[in-house]
């Protein structure tokens, strides 16, 4: 545990994410709580007392909108990543375990998925599903499945060939026990790494969709939407899009640092135990 804290990337990434999550959770206490009422006389106020991040075109407090927007963006990202992690891990281990035709067919389907840029897949799924807060996570999460699939599949294949799984078979262990006791626990750390970077990817995907106007519809604030609204007044009041962008960037940075950190932390350990 102590040695985890020696890893700077994990510490910085973790602290960053913790801070943002804390701000977002404490939003009712540290903001006015009113993120939607229009106050036209006070539109486009610069950051100052009462409005730490200024106000937007409708006179809404940007600080409030960003913190409440974080609730939407973060929960969409968590749901999307969880969906991708569960599906990808399941499909990947089944594919690797059965091999042969099953593996081949699943593999080709994943190839098709991966041949589209992720954002395009999200757009297509989003249009089919008519994006709402409830379905947004599907259009972001489904394109992330191949990330988890590939990682789980290749790790399952290599762990299946390891001596300890062969030893377990020679003791009379069935396939279920091997998957649950040996394969999944050894894949888990790799899932964490992918999970962290997928979280960053999903936050970014939500914002990009919002920016392009395919995001979660008005008036629910999400980071993507806040950026989208702000972009039209980029020159009159850069703080709207600017601060929303800053939150997005810091969150993505936090998750990427965490992911890289976990990988570096695990690597020497894994290397030691493999050699």
């Amino acid at each position, binding site marked *: 545990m102590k040695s985890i804290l020696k890893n700077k990337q994990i510490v910085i990434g973790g602290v960053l994410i913790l801070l943002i999550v804390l701000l977002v959770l404490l939003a009712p206490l540290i903001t006015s709580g009113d993120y939607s009422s229009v106050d036209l006389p006070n539109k486009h106020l610069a950051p100052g007392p009462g409005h730490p991040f200024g106000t937007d075109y409708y006179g809404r407090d940007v600080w409030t909108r960003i913190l409440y927007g974080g609730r939407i963006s973060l929960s969409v990202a968590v749901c999307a990543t969880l969906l991708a992690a569960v599906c990808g891990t399941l499909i990947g281990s089944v594919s690797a375990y059965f091999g042969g035709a099953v593996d081949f067919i699943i593999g080709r389907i994943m190839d098709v998925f991966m041949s589209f840029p992720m954002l395009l897949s999200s757009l297509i799924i989003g249009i089919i599903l008519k994006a709402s807060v409830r379905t947004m996570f599907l259009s972001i999460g489904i394109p992330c499945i191949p990330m988890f699939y590939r990682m789980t599949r290749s790790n399952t294949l290599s762990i299946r060939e390891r*001596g300890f799984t062969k030893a377990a078979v020679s003791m009379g262990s069935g396939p279920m026990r091997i998957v649950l006791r040996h394969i999944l626990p050894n894949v888990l750390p790799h899932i964490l790494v992918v999970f962290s970077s997928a979280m960053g990817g999903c936050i970014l995907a939500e914002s990009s969709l919002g920016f392009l106007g395919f995001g979660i519809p008005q008036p629910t604030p999400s980071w993507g939407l806040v950026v989208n609204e702000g972009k039209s007044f980029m020159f009159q009041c850069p703080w709207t899009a600017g601060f929303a962008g800053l939150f997005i960037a810091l969150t993505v940075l936090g998750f990427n640092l965490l992911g890289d950190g976990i990988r570096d932390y695990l690597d020497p350990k894994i290397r030691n135990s*493999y050699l």
Partner: protein
Amino acid sequence: MTQSTNTADQLLLKAEYLNKKFSISTGRGFKKLSYYAVRDLSLEIKKGEIFGLVGESGCGKSTLGSMLLGLQKPDSGSILFEGKDLTNLSSSKLKELRKDIQTVFQDPYDSLDPRFTIRQIMEEPLIIQGIGPAEKRTEIILSLLDRVDIPSDFLSRYPHQLSGGQRQRLCIARALTLSPRFLILDEAVSALDVSVQAQVINLLLDLKEQLELTYLFISHDLSIVKFMSDRIAVMYFGRIVELADKHELSRNIRHPYTKALFLAMPEPDPDIPVEVNHIEAGVPSLINPPGGCAFHPRCPYATDRCRKEAPELREISEGHLVACHLACEPIS
């Protein structure tokens, strides 16, 4: 080692005409190339002996071992363990039989799950086989750890906290948890430092006497096989080319490949004349096996007959089998 001839000749395991073919994709379409890793191989292992199996890397030793262990099914042939054919047992019977045949692999770092503690590693076979209750399992574990000289306060440690020798001793202890009668030791000491090797070899020899075990000792290193084994089978290209009692084999080598192996040993036996030239050509390709005797491209005695006709494994004197056309005359 005073066994009555009666028990000495009791068979533990008899394998007949084992074949195992692998195929690899060529990278071009669906076309596959196949080759035999083990070919028409028969052998008998007697109760209480150490049966050594030696041959270059890639000759099929591990494939044979994993078939005898029931990890891979042979494409054809039978494996009788105490009369039961383990190639066509029901899965519950096979699980029962697994208690009797256990294994120690080459790489102790690879054969221990890095996420398991020593206790979990030792307990796993007992749990899988439904041996309990927990106190009884602990008792078995502690007595075995004691036998292999691992302190009992290591129970909550992880494999990466152990030295190479300790890990291999742990693998040996784990293999013994189910009280097997037959151990397959596939390169069990090959990955260890020389000093540790001697220690583990002595441990294996002690355990064999104390627990009345039978070993199949597989290694590419003839000097270790020669030290460990009672009988030695020399394997080349998926087949046994010579099989004899250790002393008979040192005295009376009949196969040119065996001779080459003895010559390649670090300390050549002074009894063997050194005039035989070292084998030059490389290992032939499995995919395009040479016709006739598989050894002929490397054999200094090869004749036309060798290039056309594969020699059978024949008994040339009591318990000494050779697969070579020239086997009737000793090599000079």
